[in-house]
């Protein structure tokens, strides 16, 4: 039973191999066309396709039945009740990301052209940005990622932001490697991007210098909204259209959903330079976890009421959060990585020789970037440091869908890395 013997395939065998990938949805558009064309000409291939589809469906059921967690039905029916006000039917032509977002997405379409503009931001700023969007410069004339500080993965694209003066601090790199500058208009001050997150083809970039969130439509490489952010915004997260923003210096957590703003003071305001605008927000089910590095705490809040449910004194300066299996992984800029269970109990700590301030989890590994030049790879299963690699000025790191990583390496540009931190490609830089 060995198919690994090296022998050339016949054209039909090639198509049959492609047919398997076709059913799995793993073909390129050219391969899809090739299979479609073969299917038109070969009825037997169509029968094979139907068999393969049936096998795949059977495999969906082969995992067996499992009982969900206790109370699942009640939780589901509560969700159903909450969605009861959503109008029916919803036009099939509109692209609606998920049930929870149906009402918001469709409602936004019916609003005035600039309903999102917060009062605190000058209309002229936004209008200026929108006008300038029409004149896209030749990408070759733009220095891409001269000082990359934030990198975000959105589908097949990457978005990165640089702390530079000028019109093009934000760039979109599409799946073909084409670079597209995003016109952000004149935001009034220098840029100091602190964090970026993505959802549904949009990337949200927090700018600590201008107290705003830029919302970038990745496919169009344009700014579609500018949201007002709390002072010293550092921690940023988005979940089902709801933005979570944590101010590092002002100690406030703010949420924005459908123009409704909720604010909760969770720590004392502390004076700090912009370079210390670091914190993180991690919404998990009914709890949102927030770091307040100024006090060394990780704080659990009720995701709806924003009432503080728990304060965990971790010490040091926790600044970044991610999730791994059922655990919460915390990066402490004073030189630690911590494992907490979902109740917030500290389960493991590893000391790191550096000041890691950004964190990405990819598979069973955590990758932590340290502005002084290091990137650490930590095995989350064994709790050991696998390797430390030196870069230029790592400011942000993110996991990509294919197991790779992207590092915003300051003046070193954006660096594409494999899981062992080997450099695959370097983009831009100054």
């Amino acid at each position: 039973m060995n198919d690994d013997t090296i022998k050339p395939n016949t054209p039909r065998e090639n198509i049959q191999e492609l047919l398997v990938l076709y059913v799995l949805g793993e073909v390129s558009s050219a391969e899809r066309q090739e299979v479609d064309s073969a299917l038109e000409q070969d009825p037997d291939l169509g029968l094979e396709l139907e068999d393969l589809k049936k096998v795949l469906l059977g495999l969906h059921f082969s995992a067996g039945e499992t009982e969900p967690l206790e109370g699942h039905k009640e939780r589901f029916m509560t969700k159903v009740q909450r969605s009861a006000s959503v109008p029916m039917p919803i036009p099939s032509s509109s692209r609606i990301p998920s049930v929870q977002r149906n009402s918001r997405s469709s409602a936004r379409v019916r609003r005035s052209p600039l309903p999102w503009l917060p009062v605190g931001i000058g209309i002229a700023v936004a209008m200026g940005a929108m006008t300038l969007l029409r004149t896209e410069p030749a990408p070759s004339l733009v220095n891409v990622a001269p000082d990359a500080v934030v990198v975000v993965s959105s589908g097949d694209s990457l978005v990165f932001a640089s702390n530079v003066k000028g019109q093009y601090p934000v760039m979109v790199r599409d799946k073909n490697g084409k670079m597209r500058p995003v016109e952000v208009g004149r935001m009034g001050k220098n840029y100091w991007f602190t964090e970026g997150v993505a959802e549904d083809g949009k990337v949200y970039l927090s700018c600590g210098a201008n107290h705003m969130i830029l919302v970038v439509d990745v496919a169009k490489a344009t700014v579609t909204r500018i949201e007002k952010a709390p002072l010293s915004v550092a921690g940023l997260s988005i979940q089902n259209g709801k933005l979570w923003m944590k101010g590092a210096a002002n100690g406030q957590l703010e949420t924005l959903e459908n123009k409704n703003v909720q604010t909760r003071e969770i720590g004392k305001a502390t004076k700090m330079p912009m370079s210390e605008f670091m914190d993180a927000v991690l919404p998990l089910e009914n709890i949102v976890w927030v770091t307040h590095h100024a006090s060394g705490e990780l704080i659990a809040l009720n995701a709806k009421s924003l009432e503080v449910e728990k304060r965990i004194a971790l010490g040091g300066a926790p600044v970044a959060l991610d999730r791994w299996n059922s655990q919460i992984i915390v990066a402490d800029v004073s030189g630690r990585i911590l494992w907490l269970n979902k109740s917030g109990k500290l389960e493991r700590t590893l000391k790191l020789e550096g000041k890691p301030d950004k964190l990405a989890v990819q598979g069973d590994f955590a990758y932590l970037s340290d502005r002084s030049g290091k990137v650490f790879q930590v095995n989350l299963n064994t709790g050991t440091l696998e390797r430390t690699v030196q870069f230029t000025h790592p400011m942000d790191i993110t996991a990509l869908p294919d197991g790779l990583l992207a590092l915003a390496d300051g003046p070193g540009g954006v660096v594409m890395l494999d899981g062992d931190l080997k450099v695959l490609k370097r983009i831009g830089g100054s």
Partner: protein
Amino acid sequence: MQSVKLSFMPVAELTDAELISSFAGRDENALSQLYDRYTRAAHGLALGVLGHDSDAEEVVQDCFLKIWERPALYDPRRASFAAFFMTMVRNRALDTLRKRRFTTPLEDEQGSLLPIASERQGPLESAELRELGRTLSVALERLSEAHRETVTRAVYRGQSREKISLEMEVPIGTVKSRLKYALDKLKIHMKGGDWE
């Protein structure tokens, strides 16, 4: 008491498609029935992909809510609900796995779900598919470890041929041939044959 019995019994016998057709009237009883029919199988699949109970629950409930809000997404002429829904759950679970931090759309650019083979309708097909699942589960165990791992990575992890090649340290051509070989064997087993 009699009226309760009379109103309950016909609902219990409704097909999946009939239950879904009553969603437009916001019939929560119909939704509840459909949920009970498929939640465990869907949870098993989502748990197999994600490995985490609460993530699996979220994926399954998102998919049920999707159908509740947009019942027209399901076209009974194209597929049984069992086939449609489990495909939807797998896609959504893989989406969650690939971009764990973020939520991404269920639909493709045209707003419709991925195409599914035309199958017979009715509750029998759901039973057939469950039986087929058990059959293929046995067949999977009969594959060599390399073939089983390749199938698992492709089907339950949604990994591309490149990623499988990289992680299993074999050429991409071998990944493709292993997938074809394995699925051919599963197909033979599905049809009651024996590949030995």
